[in-house]
């Protein structure tokens, strides 16, 4: 049966009728399938949550052990049955390459299947398994950077920009705005990859998730909480990571001679960087850029594509030009928090 017969968009989010389950719901529901741990996708208070173990652990770090009454951890590729035994819905998770634990959600019902890719990217990222191209009848894609103006440069180039600035302004504390989950760890990886071996200093809000990543085997070298630095003046010439909200906040005033950088896919647009008051915009994204979105649609090769949050008009226009049926699933509520990009 075509997924449009058994999937619908409700106020609480995308709903699968025969499984009685929502995907990344916006409100507390009885059963939620979660693609990844970003706060606009993984919210607290559901009765039962199904996701990867890493995503469930991220939710526990953020919301405590009571983040849901019941939690089901699935491995990538493992089948899980929802719905009635006589008329089952098969749920399978596949890697999405977005952040640690991120998954595409595949639902199969009465001979047809649909994949919700959630947020995903195609670039190399050592902190998560790479996106798995998986066949399906309907592919549901995000559209965060779905405009041809978005082509993300290599991570190496952007980290190099930061290191270059550190050379040019050795007396200035380089404060880099990063989202706590995913971006922070990717920037740390990038720095270590280019041989930056000094300690990196962290805002308190970044500590728990870095510790969780470490439990999952990711080593980021020496990390020091800013709160443990007695003489803040000693941070001149050092790299400090902080969540974007702390960049222009009172918190950052104690740092010496700050040069503000911001790591986000949005930094490609000048005005966006200005809005962030970032002097050093670093274009680092955990989403697909325009060419990667098109490449993915081609490789997945589903006969029909639905487009969720973001700049869906452009992507739908282009997908239809490629001869594939496309439609928009207008989802409000995503991109509300500051974790996207």
């Amino acid at each position, binding site marked *: 049966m075509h997924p449009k017969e058994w999937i619908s968009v409700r106020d609480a989010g995308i709903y699968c009728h025969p499984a009685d389950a929502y995907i990344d719901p916006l409100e507390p529901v009885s059963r939620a399938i979660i693609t990844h741990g970003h706060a606009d996708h993984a919210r607290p208070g559901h009765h039962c949550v199904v996701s990867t173990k890493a995503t469930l652990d991220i939710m526990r770090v953020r919301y405590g052990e009571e983040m849901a009454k019941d939690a089901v951890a699935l491995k990538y590729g493992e089948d899980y049955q929802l719905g009635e035994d006589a008329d089952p819905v098969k749920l399978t998770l596949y890697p999405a390459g977005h952040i640690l634990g991120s998954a595409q959600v595949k639902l199969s019902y009465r001979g047809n299947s649909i994949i919700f890719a959630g947020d995903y990217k195609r670039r190399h990222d050592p902190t998560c398994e790479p996106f798995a191209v998986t066949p399906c009848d309907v592919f549901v894609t995000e559209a965060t950077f779905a405009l*041809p*103006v978005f082509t993300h440069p290599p991570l190496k180039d952007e980290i190099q920009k930061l290191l270059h600035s550190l050379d040019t302004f050795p007396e200035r504390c380089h404060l880099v705005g990063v989202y706590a989950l995913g971006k922070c760890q990717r920037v740390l990886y990038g720095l270590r990859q280019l041989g930056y071996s000094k300690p990196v200093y962290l805002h308190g809000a970044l500590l728990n998730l870095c510790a969780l990543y470490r439990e999952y085997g990711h080593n980021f070298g020496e990390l020091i909480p800013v709160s443990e630095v007695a003489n803040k003046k000693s941070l001149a010439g050092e790299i400090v990571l902080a969540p974007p909200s702390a960049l222009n906040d009172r918190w950052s005033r104690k740092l010496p001679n700050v040069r503000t950088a911001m790591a986000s896919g949005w930094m490609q*647009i*000048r005005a966006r960087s200005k809005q962030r008051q970032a*002097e050093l915009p670093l274009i680092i994204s955990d989403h697909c850029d325009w060419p990667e979105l098109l490449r993915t649609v081609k490789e997945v090769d589903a006969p029909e594509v639905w487009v969720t949050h973001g700049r869906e008009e452009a992507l739908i*226009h282009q997908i239809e030009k490629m001869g594939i049926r496309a439609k928009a699933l207008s989802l409000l509520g995503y991109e509300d928090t500051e974790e996207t990009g």
Partner: protein
Amino acid sequence: MDAFSQLLDQLYFTNSTKTKSALIQAYLHATPDPDRGWAIAAIAGTLTFDFFKRNTVKKLILDHVDPTLFALSYDYVGEMSETVAHLWPHSINSDEPLPSLHEIVMQFTHCKKPEVPTLLTRYLSRMYASQRWALLKLGTRGLRVGVSARALKQCLAEYGNVDVSDIERIWHGLTPPYTDLMAWLDGHAPIPDVSDKGKALYSRTGDDISHSFGDLLDSVELNGRLDGELVVMLNSKVAPFNDLQQRLNKKKPSKRLMEMLPVHLIVYDALTLDGNTLTSLPLSERRKQLDAWFEGKRHPRLHLSEKFTVTNKDACVQLREHAITHPHIEGLMLKRLDSVYVNGRPSGQWYKWKRDPYVVDAVIMYAQRGHGKRSSFYSDYTFGTWQGDTLLPIGKAYSGFTDEELKKLDTWVRKNTVGHFGPVKEVKKALVFEIAFDSVHESKRHKSGLALRFPRIHRIRWDKPANEADTLDTVRRLITTR
């Protein structure tokens, strides 16, 4: 060209004036003539012609990119040059360095018009996005990197360790690429000799606007520099600001328009008179000399500003109350008698004391994305007031709210969209703005027949139901009440 593009990039992203000045000075040190002179011209806005028109750029990009994707991208990015810089689909990797800024200026200066698109295409395809942005900004003279003409002169003064007033004095006699200026600043030559002939009119921001006001300039005989306020005068009376507005942005006003709306100058200060510099004298003394200079001469288009002397606060309040009974007077200027004439706006010296604004409650009807700093936020709002049970638009506002409120408004717009007209979103008629404005005029532009002067959002009334907003009649009545 590469150094220039890097400079623009750095200036663009730097907020502090001090750092900007340091960046420019470093560039001037590291860059040879005449390149650095062209960079000065680009930043100061003294290049005299466009290398190419915005429309040429738009046509070029539409030859290379799907028009729908271009339109969506432009709407999102909010700025043409940057949209094109990112969208340009070709990038030929070439080891050949880009030509110097001077060469590029020369090539576009001497290029025949039909060949411009080919030349531009060749360069765009050889450049990175940020270089393309710099070229497009340079070529359309739309550089906005947050350095005013005045700040640039200050920066040049620091670079050459000279007095900024010397630069100000000779500036309008200099032309790009400013090799004579740079030679002086570098200490290799004396200060350029600029005999102070000719007449010119400058805006508050230091831009030369002589071309728009030939009628005024022709009428003036003067050896000196005056400061004043432009007005349109009809039958010896100051006409509404609306009339002046029709003259303000006309680069070449027609003879008919100049006759219909003659521009005069209300003079209130003098910088030099008959070869004497007055700027360091107190206002009282400058004014005495200005009055003396005016006496006994006929100035068809120059008028001395009225002086008032008050000795206490009550008298001052009364004076303001009296002044604003005049429909076109916005308030009083208060000036310290001992204030000297200086650059910028030092606080505590001069005050503009306007009348209180009018305020009405209006309902937001449409929203559009902003430009520049606000690109991608829905920050431009059209609002209306009631006529019966229909809302009619009376104006647009872009300001008066905090960044925090902007975010909330943006979210509200996205959640309450009921229709699209291209980039314009129609929203649910449910949110009330308290709109402050200076005056109301008849206007054919809006369906309501009214236009507001300087409307801004005074308060967002999240609490107020839309049907309790004001009526069109209430607003219309304000035309006549003062």
